């Protein structure tokens, strides 16, 4: 009855483990190569650890995309991404999909870069354009646009779990504004991280980046810093996760050895004491609730007047520490100790942002967001003992990244160009690898998935589905941002999920599709019966199916001179699916309108919202 994960790695070898330090030496920048390598693919490649997204994403792709008769032909290698992706497929004789059509590409890149599908006029003019560099131009126009800034600010809010319950309405609003502005002026990512890690603040309600740390405070039932080390631990876990791609949760309670042998080789060598040393960089950091009278006010100050990290510190959420001594900070990847003359968190920020793994983890995170699957996946489960093909792990284990050289090359490129997120996204979006069709000529084999031999298809996120429906129907809610006088129209413009709370139907719709609450629940993109009910029959949808006053459909029907059936059908297809209807779709849709035009159009709107290509990005 209990399903076992097919991807479960069975640890076979008891052979010698690589010492992390040895590997790290091999990781100096000289070890990175810009030269496309074409190694023989490891046939035993398996991904250990948590659920392997690669399998499911490829199934998803195959299922939605079907196959196409077009021949793949030759695809131009447009940048370093392509050198590695196509170089490897060529070396291993793996066929790949052709480039996506213009309509597929524009919908994909709009959704991935801005979280919203393109407007029909944009699709039409893009398709009509004969400019050879029109795809590059489109990417350029999207990067930095307002929807782009909203999408990625929202994305950062999810990452940082910025939520009014934790940091107050003022805190989440200011954090949002800070991220938005940083993305707008394209602040280099290492600087953003630096600012978040080193923020000192009288209040996180007056200091944007301070909310990043304030959000992880662990409180007992009291307002004072009683569980100090728990907060340090929480920060150490999440900074390692977000900025190094490392999952230190397990070793935050116990040594890795005898626990993680089937999961992560590198972690088996890590000890709880190593983790404490990492956490000790925040040992002096105090995050104090700015209140004397209540536990219900979520405003925090951040300073560094604490006494340090004690191994005897009480814990409310971890295995008791049972130590005696004060812990001296040391960076978990290098063992480096901070300069005693410099602030601890400055030293931590320097060590994190200057380590090659920072760039590797970051590019991998953005790559996964754009490509559907990380080069290392899941993106926060790097196994540092399985990164370097020149230092292979013991028998039974494979190199973890699907494209280790590409990962390093992207990381070097990212670091050498000032940790420029916009440049990184542009590099990915303009590559032929990103622009491959999800439709595959000929027979698809599961083993092709790890080559990115075609584009992975993904279900739109909860917020993207909401936004696609309100924008296609032109039936928006005026969503007030809690704690401000602002209203917005899109879910991806809200500062955090609770901004939507007053719209019961919409808030519920978002929840059913797996919106994270940014508190404890994580985003869930799995399908479920209640999602189908929401799309077919929820008030949020049915209210938007009819030609209500102000809706796009009402506008369409009242247009003068009146549009033909075919024109209306085409308009709706563009609005919902960002493409013109196929001839038989037009014919079949016209039949719907034959007896009752309005009812036929409402049926068609309902059908378009329920066609699976509406809620999938391919």
């Amino acid at each position, binding site marked *: 009855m209990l399903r076992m994960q097919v991807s479960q790695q069975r640890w076979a070898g008891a052979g010698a483990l690589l010492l992390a330090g040895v590997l790290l030496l091999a990781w100096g920048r000289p070890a990175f190569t810009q030269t496309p390598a074409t190694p023989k693919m490891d046939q035993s490649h398996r991904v250990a650890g948590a659920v392997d997204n690669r399998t499911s994403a490829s199934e998803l792709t195959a299922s939605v995309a079907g196959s196409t008769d077009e021949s793949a032909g030759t695809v131009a290698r447009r940048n370093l991404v392509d050198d590695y992706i196509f170089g490897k497929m060529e070396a291993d004789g793996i066929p790949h999909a052709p480039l996506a059509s213009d309509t597929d590409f524009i919908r994909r890149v709009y959704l991935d870069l801005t979280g919203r599908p393109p407007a029909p006029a944009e699709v039409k003019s893009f398709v009509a354009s004969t400019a050879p560099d029109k795809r590059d131009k489109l990417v350029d126009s999207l990067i930095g646009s307002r929807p782009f800034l909203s999408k990625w600010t929202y994305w950062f809010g999810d990452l940082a779990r910025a939520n009014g319950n934790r940091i107050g309405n003022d805190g989440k609003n200011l954090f949002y504004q800070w991220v938005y502005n940083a993305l707008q002026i394209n602040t280099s990512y290492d600087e953003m991280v630096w600012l978040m890690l080193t923020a000192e603040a009288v209040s996180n309600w007056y200091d944007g980046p301070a909310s990043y740390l304030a959000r992880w405070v662990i409180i*007992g039932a009291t307002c004072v810093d009683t569980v100090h080390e728990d907060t340090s631990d929480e920060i150490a876990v999440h900074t390692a996760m977000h900025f190094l791609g490392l999952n230190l949760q397990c070793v935050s309670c116990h040594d890795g050895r005898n626990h993680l042998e089937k999961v992560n080789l590198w972690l088996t060598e890590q000890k709880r004491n190593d983790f404490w040393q990492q956490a000790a960089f925040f040992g002096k950091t105090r995050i104090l609730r700015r209140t004397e009278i*209540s536990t219900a006010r979520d405003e925090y100050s951040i300073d560094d007047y604490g006494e340090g990290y004690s191994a005897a510190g009480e814990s409310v959420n971890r*295995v008791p520490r049972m130590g005696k001594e004060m812990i001296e900070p040391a960076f978990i990847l290098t063992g480096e100790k901070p300069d005693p003359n410099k602030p601890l968190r400055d030293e931590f920020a320097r060590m994190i942002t200057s380590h090659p793994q920072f760039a590797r983890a970051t590019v991998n995170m953005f790559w996964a967001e754009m490509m559907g699957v990380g080069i290392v996946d899941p993106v926060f489960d790097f196994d540092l003992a399985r990164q370097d093909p020149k230092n292979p792990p013991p028998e039974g284990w494979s190199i973890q990244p699907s494209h280790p050289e590409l990962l390093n090359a992207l990381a070097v490129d990212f670091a050498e160009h000032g940790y420029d997120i916009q440049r990184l996204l542009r590099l990915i979006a303009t590559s032929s690898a990103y622009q491959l069709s999800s439709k595959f000529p000929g027979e698809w084999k599961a083993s092709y998935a790890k080559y990115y031999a075609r584009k992975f298809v993904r279900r739109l996120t909860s917020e993207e589905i909401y936004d696609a429906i309100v924008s296609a129907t032109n039936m928006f809610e005026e969503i007030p941002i809690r704690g401000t006088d602002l209203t917005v129209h899109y879910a991806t413009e809200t500062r955090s999920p609770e901004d939507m709370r007053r719209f019961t139907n919409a808030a519920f719709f978002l929840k059913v599709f797996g919106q994270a609450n940014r508190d*404890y629940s994580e985003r869930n993109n799995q399908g479920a019966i*209640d999602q189908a009910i929401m799309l*077919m029959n929820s008030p949020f949808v049915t209210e938007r199916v009819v030609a209500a006053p102000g809706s796009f459909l009402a506008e369409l029907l009242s247009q003068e001179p009146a549009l033909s059936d075919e024109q209306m059908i085409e308009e709706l297809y563009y609005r919902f699916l960002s493409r013109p209807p196929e001839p038989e779709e037009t014919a079949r849709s016209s039949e719907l309108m034959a007896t009752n035009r309005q009812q036929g159009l409402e049926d068609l709107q309902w059908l378009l919202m329920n066609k699976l290509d509406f809620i999938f990005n391919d």
Partner: protein
Amino acid sequence: MGYFDSLSTRREVIRAGAALGGGYFFHSLWNPTQVKAQSRANPRGSARFCLVLMLDGGQSQVDTWDLKEGAWTPEEFDIRNVSGDIGKWPYALYPQLAERFDKFLLARSMGAWDAVHGRAQYYIQTGHPLNLALSKEIPAIGAIVATEYASRRRDTDTLPPYVAMNVVRNQAGLVNSGFLPAKNTPFHIDTTTKLSAYALAPEDKPDFERRWKLLKEFDERLRTETSLAAKTYRDYNDHYEGAVRLMSDPRAARIFQLPSEERTRYGNSRTGDACILARNLIEADAGTHFIFVDVYNWDQHSNIYGSDRPRRAGNPYPSTHQEVSLELDSALAPLLDDLSGTKRTDGTSLLDETLVVCMGEFGRTPGPLSVINGRDHFPGAFSALFAGGGVKGGRVLGKTDEMGATIVESGWHEKRPIYPEDVAATIYSAMGVDWGKQVHETPSGRTFYYIEPVTAQSHIVNFQEVTEFFT
């Protein structure tokens, strides 16, 4: 006052208990020495349905089911003495439950491991500590029951096995099926949205059927592709097929309706509405076996009795202690009546086969109110209500000291509080689920215990069914 305020961890609670002179029975916990091997549990199987009403925010035990009168107690509570174990009872807040003591049991020796909402609420949903290293794979209790009941599912069952209602503000979110099959994930219902979404009204049926037929036609290629690779996509279509089966089931129309006279009888509230639906789901016996209802707004840090300011206009939630209490009373009493009054053909009542659990994630600080006239989080001692599914009502288990701060009698065979793990074991046992089960080789490589013997604080506890509920 400041004293209770500072209680944050289990250990501090223990110290506080000791300081108050009543902490003697925590000793076995204080020095855990060995793991007690989990023997195979022998579940009693006295219930087929379980309804959990979680009092989101944490109910103040000393103002409700373990009443401690003080200078702070409003006169309007109408406190009277009840003969037997109950003692004092706030008749103005729970007038209807006061007439139904025989139908439920109160446990006054509940304990929580955590004093922060999200983590404590996670405990109620899963019976496990929130461990972020494992949170992606740990399933909710409801998902385990759903999985265990999968083999009993009949072809005619169209309702999902695990239904969750009104989980809007729960800080733990709604815990899903973890490593278990996704079909056992909770099916969300918000009773304030239109329930007609779930059941086709006769007048809507022709439109819907026309559209569904058209959809299969328009989307044929995507939905029916049979190649092996199309599996995930067909899975999504399976969700559609399951949804249409549910919506078209004539029983759905009876389940998903809230007639105004019924709503009035259940108190015209979200919680009343959820209880009506829960009753309908149980009565229909159409595939749903576990129901979780979030009963919002017990987190009264300030103005608990409403003496400082009136309820904010437009606030859809009751806000004072009196309001939330009355809402619960108005919903729970008719629910118990209807469940006990409705008999299956063999003469057993719905209440006989339904375990009802009603509890917060922790209690609230006892004694005088805080300076802002509220009560803060208190995990050391609180109360819970259990009914049906074999539970012998009309009783009180456990006893606290005069202030309600310390448990002085555990009321069951273990000399310690009843923890969320014990509640989970009790639910599993009543539902006929072997709660001693372990699942090896979860995605993290760990062993998953239905009832984990080690707490977040590394105490090793012999968690078990509270058999005393049933005897």
